[in-house]
């Protein structure tokens, strides 16, 4: 069992990507949208922290995490409006 953070990050990303592929079987609607965006947020954080090295830059990591979460929340808000037919 590897403890290499990069390989663990890759394994996490592949797992989340496969979970994302499985979402094509979920019926259209807010649940699908929220799950898809949550997976994207998790994958984005792994790429920022491990691949781009922000795990070792806590202040930058916090900033990027906040902006990424805010962006995904905005997209989720629009997707929820889609579900309500507004």
């Amino acid at each position, binding site marked *: 069992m590897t403890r290499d953070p990069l*390989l663990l990050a890759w394994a996490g990303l592949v797992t989340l*990507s496969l979970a994302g592929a499985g979402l094509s079987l979920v019926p259209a609607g807010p649940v699908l949208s929220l799950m898809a965006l949550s997976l*994207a947020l998790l994958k984005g954080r792994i*790429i920022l922290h491990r691949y781009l090295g922000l795990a070792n830059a806590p202040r930058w990591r916090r900033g990027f995490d906040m902006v990424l979460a805010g962006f995904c929340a905005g*997209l989720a808000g*629009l997707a929820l409006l*889609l579900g309500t037919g507004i």
Partner: protein
Amino acid sequence: MTDLLDELPGEPMMWVLIVSELLVFGAGLAALSAMRLTDPAGFAEAQAHLNRAGAALNTVVLVTSGCLAALAVRAAQSGREGRKRALLAGAMVLGVVFLVIKGQEYAAKAAEGITWETHPFFTFYYLLTGFHAAHVVAGIVLLGLVAVLRDPRATETGAAFWHMVDLVWVLLFPVVYLIR
């Protein structure tokens, strides 16, 4: 302030580019999401023509390529030039695989007579995925350049660009291919 910049891994100018690119793609994805509200049924019907399995496979291809690029940075920092080049070559090959899968998707759309004018969804689809594919091409060239340079800092900069391409795709995938 210098303290804060020192904390940032890699070349600061590459981070400026990364943030700029994320803003551009972010605006495009937000615009697509907002436009979808004007015609949810039409957007869903248009989106049904996309190959979700191919796009999901491409996500696995890109994140694996990103891992190879990150491992190449580590190899460069420890002076293992041969290993660095092999890992970057692997990352570039996977970049080409991504483009081949994407090309097949475009060819399938063309065979169906779908163009960027067919529906506003396809205008966004071609703009966003086409612009992203152009970045994949640029990233492959950049990885090729840093592979021949004996400079760990250059490898880190090239890999950072590649990770940005990766990050954009994981945000683009749900908005373009899944949400309906």
